[in-house]
């Protein structure tokens, strides 16, 4: 790199030093907690993953999380390695150029056993709201719907071009039907039939039950454990 004049040189120097400082400091807490040698082993895994195109921030966060939770260095190293492998698998599905959120949600979905082919299709059809689609699948699973049914419902809804908010209404509608006494599979089947009939899936009103992203203050305070 060549800069003309003292100002250019100074700016370039600031940029380089700043970048190096930022990279060195992101694991400062891990170094403080574990010492230089253990931190270096963890950083080696992170550096290698970064060279493979994986988002460094997610792996650093996992290491920092482990340090904060006072985990043993070996445990943190294993957790970072496992996350790196999961992100590599996710990158094979949605591409290495996917952002951290997309990669992380893909990894989550794969962990739940979601079909990689479905994930690739969802990403192709609606890349912008891909993370929302995964959240919808997770919410369906959380509502008790089997993986196969959740996959089928999400695929169907995506092919019909449902918007992100409508996708999030699907698990909310399933939960509402479950509260009315149906089994999760019956509820999902009913929602899917409505979808195929061209009816709009309307989420329940906020006061009736939890939406996908509820206001936390609306929740009941848990009883003493």
């Amino acid at each position, binding site marked *: 790199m060549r800069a003309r004049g003292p100002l250019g040189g100074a700016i370039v120097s600031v940029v380089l030093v700043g970048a190096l400082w930022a990279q060195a400091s992101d694991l400062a807490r891990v170094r403080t907690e574990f010492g230089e040698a253990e931190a270096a082993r963890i950083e080696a895994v992170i550096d290698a993953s970064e060279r493979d195109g994986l988002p460094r921030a997610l792996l650093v966060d996992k290491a920092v999380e482990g340090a904060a939770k006072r985990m043993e260095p070996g445990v943190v190293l294993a957790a970072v390695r496992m996350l790196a492998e999961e992100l590599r698998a996710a990158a094979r599905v949605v591409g290495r150029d996917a952002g951290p959120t997309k990669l992380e949600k893909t990894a989550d979905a794969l962990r739940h056993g979601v079909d990689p082919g479905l994930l690739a299709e969802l990403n192709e059809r609606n890349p912008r709201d891909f*993370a929302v689609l995964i959240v919808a699948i997770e919410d369906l699973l959380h509502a008790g719907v089997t993986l196969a049914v959740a996959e089928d419902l999400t695929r169907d809804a995506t092919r019909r071009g449902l918007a992100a908010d409508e996708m999030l209404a699907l698990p909310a509608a399933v939960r509402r039907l479950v509260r009315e006494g149906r089994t999760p599979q019956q509820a999902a089947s009913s929602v899917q039939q409505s979808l195929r009939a061209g009816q709009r899936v309307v989420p329940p009103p906020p006061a009736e039950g939890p939406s996908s992203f509820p206001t*936390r203050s609306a929740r009941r305070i848990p009883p003493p454990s």
Partner: protein
Amino acid sequence: MNEQLNRYLDGEIELGALPPELRREAEAWDAFVGDVRDSGAAGAPVGLESRIVGAIRAETKAPWSRVAKWWLNPHSIRVRPLIGLAAAAALAAFLLVPRDDVTTEPSGATTAVVGEEAVYVQFVLRAPDATSVAVAGDFNEWVPEIALNDLDGDGIWSGRVRLGPGVHKYMFVIDGTRWITDPYAERYAEDGYGNRNAVIAITGGAGAGSLAP
């Protein structure tokens, strides 16, 4: 003179575009201009032009006026592409480098949209035996420093945190050492350390569904 009225008199906007309180004044100006026109005045009074030009010159001679004019008028700045790029990169590096002064202590409504980028999330935990409760998550590098409060001593700890759009993971930390999962979170994720993080999703704006990076 009121700027809207001025624009009307300049013919830039219609009378109907003025607020009612200005319309009467505009009509008075119209009447005045009409009277002048009807009086058959052939031109400006003798000496008016020279007085106006003199006033303009006197005004432009004031130093503060030149400074103000320099700041208010557009200027062309020539920058070498390399230096411009480096300056932009320096600014980006400065903005992207994590700093410790992240705002985390809002006040006001329980959950309020701030612009279209962030919301204040209220965290609540019942922990009657705790002497302190904090929340830590990927939004604050897992540092248990965002303290929840139990001002009335009823064992219900709460506090608000400003979160940007995206999916966030967190846990509560009791007495600075005991990490526990929010028992009433909407969804959870394995943390890789044998526990579960609570997960909260913040959509961008008021209900926009996208969580895209």
